[in-house]
C-alpha cells in the first residue's frame, strides 16, 4: 500500500547552516531556484517531492548613496540637467528628481522616464543581453522653454522589479537603468541612460526573530 506521508517542515537556515547567498530569480533566459527535495528511498522507485522556496536577499540602507546629477546635451540643440535624488533605490522607493532645461532648440512633444532591465547571461563571446522595458512613465507633456524645471516622482512599487544582481554565481547579471527619453515633433528620440542600483529592504512587518524564516510555497 502507498503510505501517504504528509510532510510539514519548517526549516530554519540557522539550524541547517545552508547558506543561501543569492536571491531567487526567474528571468527570461535564466532562473535561480531554491527548492527542498525530499526523497524517500524505496526498493523500486523513489518518491521524490520538491518544494520551491523563495529566497529574498534583504539589505539595509547603503552607507553611501549619492544623487545622480548630470548635464547632458547636443550642441546647439538641447541641453538639460537631470537630477535623481539617489543612485541606489529599494524596491518600494520613490525616484524623486527633476529635469532642468538649459537650452531648447528643438520642438519637444513629450518626455518620459523608462525603467530598463538588462539581463546578461553567458560569458565571454557567448554573452547575451536581454533588455526589457519595465515601465514607461510620462513626465512631461508639451514643449518647455529654457529655464523650466520639470519634477519627477516615480513610485517603484508600481512595477515588478528585482534587486540588482551582479554576476550571480558567475552565471548571470540583472541590472537596471533609468532611461530618460525626449521625443520631438518628428518622433525623433533623444535619450540618456543611467544605471541605478536596486536593493530589497526588509519589510517593516518582519520581526527580527523571524528573519531568515522562509515562506514555504505550495507547489502542487
Amino acid at each position, binding site marked *: 500500500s502507498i503510505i501517504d506521508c504528509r510532510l510539514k517542515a519548517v526549516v530554519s537556515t540557522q539550524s541547517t547552516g545552508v547558506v543561501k547567498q543569492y536571491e531567487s530569480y526567474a528571468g527570461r533566459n535564466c532562473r535561480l531556484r531554491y527548492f527542498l527535495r525530499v526523497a524517500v528511498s524505496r526498493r523500486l522507485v523513489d518518491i521524490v517531492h520538491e518544494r520551491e522556496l523563495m529566497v529574498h536577499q534583504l539589505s539595509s540602507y547603503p552607507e553611501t548613496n549619492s544623487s545622480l546629477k548630470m548635464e547632458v546635451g547636443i550642441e546647439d540643440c538641447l541641453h538639460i540637467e537631470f537630477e535623481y535624488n539617489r543612485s541606489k533605490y529599494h524596491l518600494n522607493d520613490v525616484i524623486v528628481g527633476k529635469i532642468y532645461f538649459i537650452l531648447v532648440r528643438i520642438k519637444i512633444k513629450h518626455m518620459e522616464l523608462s525603467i530598463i532591465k538588462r539581463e546578461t547571461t553567458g560569458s565571454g563571446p557567448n554573452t547575451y543581453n536581454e533588455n526589457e522595458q519595465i515601465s514607461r*512613465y510620462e*513626465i*512631461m*507633456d508639451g*514643449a518647455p*522653454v529654457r529655464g523650466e524645471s520639470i*519634477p519627477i*516622482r516615480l513610485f517603484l512599487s*508600481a512595477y515588478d522589479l528585482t534587486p540588482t544582481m551582479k554576476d550571480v554565481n558567475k552565471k548571470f547579471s540583472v541590472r537596471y537603468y533609468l532611461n530618460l527619453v525626449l521625443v520631438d515633433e518628428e518622433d525623433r528620440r533623444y535619450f540618456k541612460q543611467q544605471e541605478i542600483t536596486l536593493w530589497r529592504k526588509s519589510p517593516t512587518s518582519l520581526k527580527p526573530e523571524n528573519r531568515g524564516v522562509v515562506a514555504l510555497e505550495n507547489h502542487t
Partner: protein
Amino acid sequence: MANSETEQAKYLDAAKEVVKREAFNMQRALDKGQLMDGLRHATEMLNELRTSILMPKSYYELYMMVTMELTHLNMYMSGEFIKENKIADLYELVQHAGNIVPRLYLLITVGVVYIKSQECSRKDILQDLVEMCRGVQHPLRGLFLRNFLLTSTRDVLPDIDDNIVDSGTIDDSIDFILLNFSEMNKLWVRMQHQGHSRDRTKREQERLELKILVGTNLERLSRLEGVTVSKYQNHVLPAILKQLINCKDSIAQEYLMDCIIQVFPDEFHLKTLDTFLDTCCQPQGTVNVRNIIISIIGRLSNYAQADPSNIPEDIELFQIFSGKVTQIIQSRTEMPPEDILALQSALIKLALNVYPSETGYVDKVLENTCNIFNEERSRAKGCSAELSRMLRVPIDHYGDILTIIQLEHFTQLFGFLEYKSRKELCVYLAENVIQTETHIDSHDQVDLFLTMISCLVTDQADQSAEPEDPEDFEIEQSLVGRLVHQLTSGIPDQQFLILNTCKKHLLTGGDKRIQYTLPSLIFRAIQLCRVYHDLAAEDEKWEKKVTKILMYINSLLSTLVKAEYWDLALRLFLQAALVCDMVGIQSAETAGYEFVSQAFAIYEEEVSDSKAQLIAISLIVATFERTINFSEENHEPLRSQCLRASSKLLKKPDQCRAVSLCAHLYWSGKNREMAG
C-alpha cells in the same frame, strides 16, 4: 490639427462618446465599491483630454464634460472610501498612472479629498499639486489643467476666518494662487509664438477665447477674505505686476491690467494708484494703455461720486491722473490722436463728475491738449471727430455757455479742427444757447462768445471755395440771427456795449450774412431806444444815448443798402422811423426824417416792379401815418412826396388806391403842432 468646423465637430463627438461610456463604467464600478476598476475607467476617460486635435472651444466643451464626471469620483472618495481606507495611500496610488494628464487630474481630485480629510498639512498638499502641474507644458492642456486645479481648490484654500489651525495661512493661499497664475500666464503667452506667422491672427483669437482661464486666478485672489489692503499692496499686486512686465506680451498686459481694475475693490486701487499707473507708463511696445487708463479713471470716478468721503483727503485724483496722462502721452510719440483725445476726455469727465466746482481742472486739460498739439502739429492730424466729441463733453455737462466761455483754452482748441467740424461745433453751441435760453449779458462775454463761433459769423481761411448749400446756409445764419436776441443784458448801458460788440463781429460776415444777422441787431437797437425812453426819469443822459443808438442803426442800415438789400432796408428804415417818432426828441425827429427819406430814396431808385411799388408805397404811407411827432416843417415835404409817388404809379387802379391812402395823411394830419 483638424481645421474645418465639421471635422472639429466630428472629433469632439467621438471624444464625447468615449467619455460618456467610460464615465458610465466608472460610476458602475464605484457603485460596486470597486475603486481600482473605477480608477481604470476614469483614466480612460481622462485620456481624451490628451488630444491635440481639438481647438480651444471644442476642448473646453470636452473639459467641462469630463470634469463634471470627476465630481462623482470625488464624492465616492469623500464618502464610502474614506471610511475604511487611508486617503494618503490613494494619493500615491493615482501617481502610478503612466500618462501625465490623467495622472494629474486624478491627483488633484484625490488631493482635494485629502485636504478635506485633514490628515495632512493643507499647505503641503496644495504646494505639491501646484508644483506637479509643471509637468504639462503644452499650453492648451496646461491651461485647462491648472484651471481645474484652481476651481477644485476653491473651497479648501486657507483663509483668515476658517478654524483649521497649523495647516496653512492666508499667505500660503496667496502664494499658491500667484504661482498658478504665473505658470498659466507663461503658457498663455507661449501660445503667441507657436506655429506659423501667417496664423497669427487666428492664434490671437484663440488666446482671447482663453483669457478668462488666466483671469480667474486674479478673481480668486480677490475673493480671499484675508487679502487686506496692505497684503494687496505689499504682496499681491507687486507679484502680479512683475509677471505682467516680465512676460512682455501686449495681449496679456492689456487684458490683465483691466482684470485687476475690475476684480479688486476701489479702495485697493486708491492705495496703489501710483504703482499701478507707473506700470502703465513703462514703455512696452504696443500695449494700448488708453483703455486701461480710461477704465480706472471711470471706476474711481464712479467710486468718488457714490460717496465723496471714499476718497481720502491726501489723494488728489485729478492731479495724479493728469500728471500721469501727460507723462504717457509724451513718452509715446506714436500714440494716435484718437487715443490722446480719448484720454483727455476721460480726464475731463473725471473733473466734471468728481470736482464739479473746479472749472480750472477742465481748463487745465484743455490747456494740456493745446500744448501737446502745439508742440507737434502733426499729432493733431485727422482728429477732428474725436476732438469735437471731447469738446462736447463739457458743453453737455455744464449746459451753460457762460461756464464754457470761462474756459480760456476752449476756443484755442478750435484751431485744430477741420472747417466742417468747427462749423458743426459752432452750430451746436449756438443751438445750445438758444435752447437753454441762456442770456449772455456782458459785452466781454459776448465778445468771447462771438469769437468762439466765428465760424458762423465770418468766412474762414480754410473754408472750401465751393459755395455752400443755400438752404443750409440760410438755416445757419438764421440761427445766428436768433442768437443775437440771447445776447442781451437788462442793464441798458451794458446792452449798448453788447450791441456794439455784435456789430463789430457781425459786420465781418460779409454781404451774404448780414441779410440774416443785421435785422435782429437793428430790432434790438430799436428795443433799446424804447427802454431808454421808458427810463427817462432815471437817466439824465438818455437823450444822448438814444441819439447814439439811432446813429448806430443808421450805419447798419447803410451797410444793408450798400449790399443792395433794398426791400429789407426799406422796411427797416420805416421801423426805425417809428421808434424815432416815439422817442420824441429833437435829434430823433431829424433821424426819423432821414429814415423816411432814405426809404423814399430806395423806393424811387430801386423798386421797379409795379406790384412791388404799390406794396412799398402803401407801407411807407402807412408807417408815416402812424407817426405823431413830426413838425409841420418836416411833415409837409414828406406828405407831398408820398402823394407824388402815389400818383406816379403805373396802373390807374393802383394810383387810386395809393392816393386814397395818402388822404389819411392829410385829414388826420397828425403832427406835433396839432398834438395828435
